[in-house]
């Protein structure tokens, strides 16, 4: 097993998951992850592999977003969930799609740095790694995360409540 193999096996999945959560598009996430690993292979030495990979991936996303070359857009999850429709009850598919759509809306509603910190933490990165990737003080990661979590949870709950009220009104 070469270093490249090991690196890929160890970090590809979490990196793609992180990028997918952040970008909302698995294809785009795969592309960014691949480019990240290509750059990693070109790198002679990497001190902290996980931090390095996530930081490079972050930079690639940021650069691409700046160029707006791809003009990636937000999801229409209701339509996208059609992929799984054959295997699930329509009502369930709709419900999950709605939950995903609410999650996406809630996540999109928080600040970029908060969002990245939250997603990196969900991938298991520690405060030191998150601070290094985001270029912030380690001591401020807790505050960043607490703010991100609160805003995400409250926003999501508000969206869900609004949806429930609409459904109840429609049913009554």
């Amino acid at each position, binding site marked *: 097993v070469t270093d490249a193999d090991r690196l890929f096996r160890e970090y590809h999945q979490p990196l793609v998951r992180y990028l997918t959560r952040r970008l909302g598009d*698995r294809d785009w996430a795969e592309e960014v992850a691949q480019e990240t690993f290509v750059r990693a292979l070109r790198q002679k030495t990497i001190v902290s592999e996980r931090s390095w990979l996530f930081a490079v991936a972050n930079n690639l996303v940021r650069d691409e977003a700046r160029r707006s070359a791809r003009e990636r857009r937000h999801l229409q999850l209701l339509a996208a969930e059609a992929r799984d429709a054959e295997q699930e009850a329509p009502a369930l598919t709709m419900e999950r799609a709605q939950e995903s759509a609410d999650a996406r809306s809630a996540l999109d509603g928080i600040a970029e740095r908060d969002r990245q910190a939250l997603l990196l*933490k969900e991938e298991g990165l520690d405060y030191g790694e998150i601070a290094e990737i985001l270029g912030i003080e380690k001591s401020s990661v*807790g505050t960043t995360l607490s703010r991100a979590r609160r805003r995400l*949870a409250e926003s999501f709950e508000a969206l869900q409540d609004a949806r429930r009220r609409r459904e109840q009104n429609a*049913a009554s």
Partner: protein
Amino acid sequence: MPHPDEGLIHAWLDGELEPSEASRVEALVATDPVWSAAAAEARGLIAASSRVVNALDRVPANVVPAAHRKPRRASWWLSRVAALLVVVVGASIVSRRDPTVQTVIPTSPAPKAVAMTAPPVASSPAVSEKMKTGIALVTPTASGAQAPAPRAASPTLAAAENRVTALLDAPSREAVPLKKTVEDSVVARREQLQGRALQLSAAPAAPRAARPAAHAALGEIREDAAKSAAAERCFVARAPKADSTAIVRLGPTALADSIRAGWEFLADSLLARPNGRPMLHQVPCPVR
């Protein structure tokens, strides 16, 4: 006592504090109700945000982009013109077919209402059907306004609700039937039950299908728990596994220890229904 530092509490819960600092926070949480409440809230936020992030994972590739779609100004006019055409054509058809039918061409604001709510005519089977028959859009209600679109059949909801109520009433040898207790709690409030009944009835054969509903139930339970510590202490979910006696007890303290690790487990067990039986159980509140 210092005022609770939310960031510090999150760092503590994330295991990111130095041992000495962690001990200090731990002592504050153990002795100060304000810190304790802040820690409990932080645990809830961590669990909730994690759940939201996990909900993102059902994201397929080749998604349909939408955010940058340019506003279609023409559709604003088209929809109104289409609506007007529907009304006029429908009225004329009906008047030709049956002279006894009173044709009412809605004046404002009725056409506006049609235009605002109707999707493009060609893509709407309902509207297309109305165009074919020429009846729906010109049949006046008692007030002369346009008849509202038919809603989902209420018998479906009633049947689903009855079904869930019956499930809650079903005797269980493993735990105390909890209808009365549940009624006293937030779990089975009628309005929530209605919405959940539809979800449950839609997936009778898939226990995991009830997970979103379980998540919602948990959220509601926790919300009310904040208002009623007694309700929080009394909430117990029993694992549906036949060989398991594991019980997760959501009390103010136990909740703090188990909410994150137990979230998925609870979500699975709350509304999992092996043998068509609800596995949501609530037992008398243990003395704490």
